[in-house]
């Protein structure tokens, strides 16, 4: 499969269909990392295995823009797993990416693994093995039985007494160092200037006080409501091991349950929070 994928990348580069292919390579210490391939002769660097868990769609936010005003958007080929395809669909729904400038190289996903060889938790609850969106597809999709996401992880927190929930989140937030890796890795976080980083401290300042960190994480989760494709990039890049998926998945769960089973990136419908303006006619008592 990898040979075919490399051949495709070579063909795209040689025919100048794309300027660059974003994929994965193995770094000098054996870690898999993103790579930008510009030369046809470099396509042999491309690999695909169960450690390719970075969401490369993030790079489109930067690359899929004119370099200078008035210039054309550069063309890009990009390797996309099923979860990444959902992120891409979200960006397309929000007109963040020019589809005709992107060649989507879909890969059938065997399920990603942690460094110790165990399956990643997010992959155990995912039954998508083929991206919903691609121009060319590589790999044989493995058989998966129907998996229903039960939100067991979220419910575990929900079931805790309030004081324990608070204590849990305080201990997690306390570790946050405000490196913003979660935001930078997230394909959905494409604002030019993050509201948490404004020079005028409009909402929060720059300190490591818990309320400021809480504000950042709450608003980030909230802004991703109906937009988070559960690629888990935020959690994977966090140097302090903060379980950010628990925040995002709480919102995913609520959106699914209150907005007609909506899941981000599975259709061309953008987030229902701002686009669906009906459905509440019966509501009279709120809380």
């Amino acid at each position, binding site marked *: 499969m990898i040979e075919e994928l490399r051949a495709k990348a070579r063909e795209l580069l040689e025919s100048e269909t794309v300027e660059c292919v974003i994929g994965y390579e193995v770094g000098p210490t054996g870690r898999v990392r993103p790579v930008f391939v510009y030369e046809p002769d470099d396509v042999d660097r491309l690999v695909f295995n169960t450690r390719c868990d970075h969401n490369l769609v993030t790079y489109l936010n930067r690359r899929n823009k004119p370099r200078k005003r008035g210039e054309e958007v550069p063309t890009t080929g990009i390797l996309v797993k099923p979860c990444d395809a959902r992120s891409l669909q979200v960006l397309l729904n929000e007109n963040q990416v020019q589809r005709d400038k992107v060649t989507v190289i879909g890969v059938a996903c065997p399920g990603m693994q942690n460094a110790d060889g165990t399956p990643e938790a997010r992959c155990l609850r995912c039954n998508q093995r083929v991206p919903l969106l691609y121009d060319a597809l590589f790999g044989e999709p493995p058989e998966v039985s129907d998996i229903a996401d039960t939100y067991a992880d979220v419910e575990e*927190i*929900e079931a805790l007494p*309030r*004081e324990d*929930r*608070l*204590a*849990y*989140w*305080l201990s997690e*937030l306390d570790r946050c160092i405000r490196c913003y890796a979660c935001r930078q890795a997230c394909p959905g976080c494409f604002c030019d200037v993050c*509201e948490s980083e404004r020079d005028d401290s409009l*909402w*929060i*300042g720059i*300190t*490591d*006080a*818990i*309320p*400021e960190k*809480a*504000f950042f994480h*709450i*608003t980030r*989760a*909230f802004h991703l*409501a109906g937009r988070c494709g559960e690629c888990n990039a935020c959690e994977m890049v966090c140097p302090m091991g903060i379980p950010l998926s628990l*925040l995002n998945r*709480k*919102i995913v769960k*609520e*959106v699914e349950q*209150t*907005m007609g089973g909506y899941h981000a990136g599975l259709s061309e419908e953008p987030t*229902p*929070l*701002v686009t*669906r*303006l*009906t*459905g*509440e*006619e019966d*509501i*009279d008592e*709120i*809380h």
Partner: protein
Amino acid sequence: MDELSSNTIEGFEPKIVAFMCNWCSYAAADSAGVARIPSPPDVLPVRVMCSARVSAELVLKAFMSGADGVIVLGCHIGDCHYDSGNHRTVKRIPLLRKLLIYMGVEPDRLRLKWVSAAESPQFAQVTKKFVEDVRALGPLSAPLRVEEPAGVNRPGVVEGGVP
């Protein structure tokens, strides 16, 4: 909003921020005043052009600046001055509330209610109930509030010399 300051639990009077829609609840509050319907004095009214203007940021900032409770008052569904603004509100505020509860904030600290311009008694009743509920909770604590100034809880250096 940084005019607000928190009190001690003893004789605790909660600080409440009420975001009120210009076209309904703000008018209701106004006529409640004219009609001399008693309504709680602890409420800091913030007029917005539509309850949909009340973003998560505004709610959180109110909490961080000293509010012990935040209530959002908007038009009944179907009555929005801008046709569909409150459809956004009703998706947004309950979702934020659920997230705050999930993070350990008491459910009664954030509330969304519909109050039309003609419902001044309801306005008084809704705000009074909210103030009572928040009063029962006491002052807001973490994660949106810390008593110490930033950095003090950092392991610094204590008094005493090298032995």
